């Protein structure tokens, strides 16, 4: 094993900056483009607030640094620590439920005295890692008992997070775990069965939902019935996007956001600001950047050399896609309002660090490949 590694290291032709820094140029390019574009939109969305711009820059710095650090960690090292991280994560989630701080009506934060920590963020990475670790132990596709165990591994943190309550994050984690199972070759029959039982389980889920979550679904279905209450978000964001047209009203010229008609314009609804000021053209540009990132992520996964890396990498790429499709679907009125930010564009700290840590893992997977003998 060490022989291959040495070979890789000694191969002068491969000693370009990417493998030295363990970074991936394509991903880095895509992420940087999205971040810079995002900064422009954010600057406008916050009414040209320099303070917000600087804070976001700092966060981006921290996030990119986190990515770079994680990228240095060998995948094998990550794999070895996976079960431990998972265990710690579960304990922290329980701690949040018992001791957690309440922020905005939901218990998500754990105050460690020096830092306020959101264990659910960590689980966005740890859950797919854990499922990938568990499934890669045996041959694929997984047998039914292993699928059930994997399902349990996903369900426990998802339920704990859903109880905080944080529907957006728990959905994201559930899908991250599900993607691992899907990529591992979950049989189509089982997938169909899952679909049917999900449809059947929806009323049960409805029963367990908080009233505000039910309200969101209801509002999604009939936004115009409550135009000044919960439907206001969707109506105003559709107006913002629609009035933007093909080329938009121009940077800093969006009236919906600047005149405060559009709520949460710098966070969850920033996509509407983009649509209003840069129009369809601006949106397509951002979607193109996102597509580059997603395709590159999936490519990295396919090039990975072991099952753990493949499954984890693929799941991370697809989760990134889920972020985008859920956020844009919500802002354009295709999906109910679920509190998910638009990656790299929305103003916000913790989730961005987690996201970039995920790309760190992808870069690590790609740059720590061993060159196999033919």
């Amino acid at each position, binding site marked *: 094993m060490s022989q291959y590694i040495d070979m890789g290291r000694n191969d002068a032709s491969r000693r370009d900056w990417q493998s030295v820094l363990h970074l991936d140029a394509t991903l880095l390019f895509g992420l940087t483009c999205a971040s810079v574009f995002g900064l422009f939109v954010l600057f406008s969305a916050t009414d040209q607030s320099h303070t917000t711009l600087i804070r976001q820059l700092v966060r981006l710095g921290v996030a990119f640094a986190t990515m770079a650090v994680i990228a240095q960690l060998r995948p094998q090292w990550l794999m070895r620590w996976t079960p431990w991280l998972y265990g710690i994560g579960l304990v922290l989630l329980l701690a949040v439920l018992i001791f957690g701080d309440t922020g905005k009506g939901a218990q998500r934060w754990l105050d460690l005295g020096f830092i306020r920590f959101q264990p659910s963020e960590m689980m966005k990475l740890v859950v797919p890692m854990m499922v990938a670790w568990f499934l890669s132990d045996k041959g694929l596709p997984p047998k039914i008992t292993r699928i059930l165990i994997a399902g349990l591994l996903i369900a426990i943190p998802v339920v704990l997070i859903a109880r905080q309550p944080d529907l957006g994050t728990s959905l994201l984690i559930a899908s991250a775990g599900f993607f691992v199972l899907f990529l591992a070759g979950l049989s189509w029959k089982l997938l169909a069965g899952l679909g049917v039982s999900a449809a059947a389980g929806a009323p049960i889920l409805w029963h367990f939902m908080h009233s505000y979550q039910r309200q969101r679904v209801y509002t999604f279905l009939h936004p115009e019935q409550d135009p000044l209450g919960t439907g206001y978000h969707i109506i105003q964001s559709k107006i913002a996007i629609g009035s933007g047209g093909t080329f938009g009203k121009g940077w800093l010229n969006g*009236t919906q956001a600047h*005149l405060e008609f559009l709520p949460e314009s710098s966070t969850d609804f920033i996509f509407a600001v983009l649509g209003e000021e840069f129009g369809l053209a601006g949106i397509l540009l951002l979607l193109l950047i996102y597509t580059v990132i997603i395709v590159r992520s999936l490519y990295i996964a396919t090039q990975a050399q072991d099952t753990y890396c493949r499954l984890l990498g*693929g799941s991370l790429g697809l989760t990134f896609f889920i972020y985008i499709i859920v956020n844009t679907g919500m802002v354009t009125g295709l999906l109910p309002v679920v509190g998910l930010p638009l990656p790299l564009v929305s103003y916000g700290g913790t989730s961005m660090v987690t996201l970039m840590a995920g790309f760190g893992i992808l870069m690590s997977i790609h740059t720590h490949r061993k060159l196999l003998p033919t």
Partner: protein
Amino acid sequence: MPHRVTIKDYLFESRLFMRRTVVALIIAGLLFVGLIARLIYLQVVDHEHYVTLSDENRIKIQPLAPNRGLIFDRNGVILAENLPSYRLEITQELVKDMDTTLDKLSQLIRIQDIDRKRFKKLLKQTPHFKPVPLRFHLNDEEVARFAVDRHRFPGVDIVAGLTRHYPNGALAVHALGYVGRIDIRDLQRIDTSNYSGTTHIGKTGIEKTYEDKLHGKAGYSQVETNAEGRILRTLERVAPIPGENITLTIDARLQTRVEAIFNNRAGAAIVLEPQTGDILAFVSMPGYDPNLFVNGIDVKTYRDLRNNIYQPLFNRALRGQYPPGSTIKPFVGLGALEQHTVTAHDSIFCPGFYQLPRKDRKYRDWKKTGHGTMSMVSAITQSCDVYFYDLALSMGIDQLHDSLALFGFGKRTGIDISGEAPGLLPSRSWKRKTRDQPWYPGETLITGIGQGFMLTTPIQLASATATLATYGQKITPHVILSSQSGSEPPAGTVISTSQLPVNELQHWQTVIHAMQEVVHGKRGTARRTGQNASYRMAGKTGTAQVFGLKEEEKYDAETIAEKLRDHSLFIAFAPVNNPQIAVAVIIENGGSGSAVAAPMVRQIIDSWLAPELSQELTP
């Protein structure tokens, strides 16, 4: 071998993963396509719709109310004006401690608990950057006191607006009317967009009739607002077109004089120019102060006005319907002459009563002893009832009705003040229709002396007098002289001129001569009124019974309640040869026409015609 198996599995797993990745990519790609389709729908297909919604969001139309037109009398004396009125407003976000501010303010300006309560309620409903009114109609002293201490009250402002004011108070109130706050009934008949910034509307009188001219056209300003409603900038401004000033035919000096002559009697007087139909004075007494109504009258004051037995709110000149009594006689006489029912020389004997053939009932003359032999002129001069009983019977109700209808009795004159009552000129068909009864000859008799069913309004009586004075020239009486855009009356009111048929001018001259004798003749019923007049006037007294006396009952003013006493009437025009003024006066429960109404008319005509008195009128 296990090693080989691992390799094989590895390849299999790798392919499986590849397949799954491609499936995921395809699904993701389809979802992106769906998203883009949605975006195209929003941003391209429905773009215009959302642009409209976005503009509606940010652009608000603020109405700008036009200033109401002023009302002048014929000499340019102002009758209705707009005065600045001051209100005190507080902007919440500029005030640190609202209660302290209110307490300090109340040391300068009277702030009642009710003001404070209403203000607190409004405060909760208003965005913090919008001013909330605390007090309305500050007086000059309060404005001055606040102005001195203005610096101590950041966020507190005095805002000037315009409020309708009638500087002469009750003068001509029944002609002018008043404006009041727009209510639900008003909203149903106005163009709400033109009134969106307006708070007041003409409620009665000229203010109501000429509302369209007086109001003007609302302007607007287009402003950009944020989601809270704070105005950020003005995009467009279209100035309002102020209402037109209008000039009335009323002469404020004469109006004042006539109202003074009434000396608190209840009744009405119409003074008009026979040649033009211009109303010089429009009096209904008692009146009231229209300023009370402009900004809402308080309940007690209103109740007092409503319950006042003299009914100051009642427009007697326009809506009061009275039996014309003997004032109808010249018109009946003229009708009979023109129809050749009698000649001026035919005479009958008046024994003091009249009986229908084969009937026992006696129709009494006001003069118990009788007038003796009477012809047309003496019957009008002395107001002989018996002569007119007989004349009416000879004419018959149909002819009586038709000749009186020519002068406009029983029909609205069409004066440009709304709410006119039609009066009542009875006829066979009217009685059949309303009472389902045939017409009785006895009813013809009393119609001939202006009693029974017949009712007229003061404006009708004055208009008929003017028509008589001008030998049949009938002009719709009106109060508008001119407005900035011309003198046309508004839709629905037409000033028309027509000429009544004149068979023989001599008939008219006979009747007018008889009316002159009423005032200037030795035996005229109003001979005392005509004494020492520098001009010749033609008139006719009238005493209208409010309730019917039994056949043998004697009328005694002392013994019956005031409300049941006779109405006192007098109609006149002067000078006889060149009529410049026609007057109808009715004093409710005033007693006899010769004693009360006639001397008042003399005073009125004196003030208009006598040059020295007209000097006196000049303010």
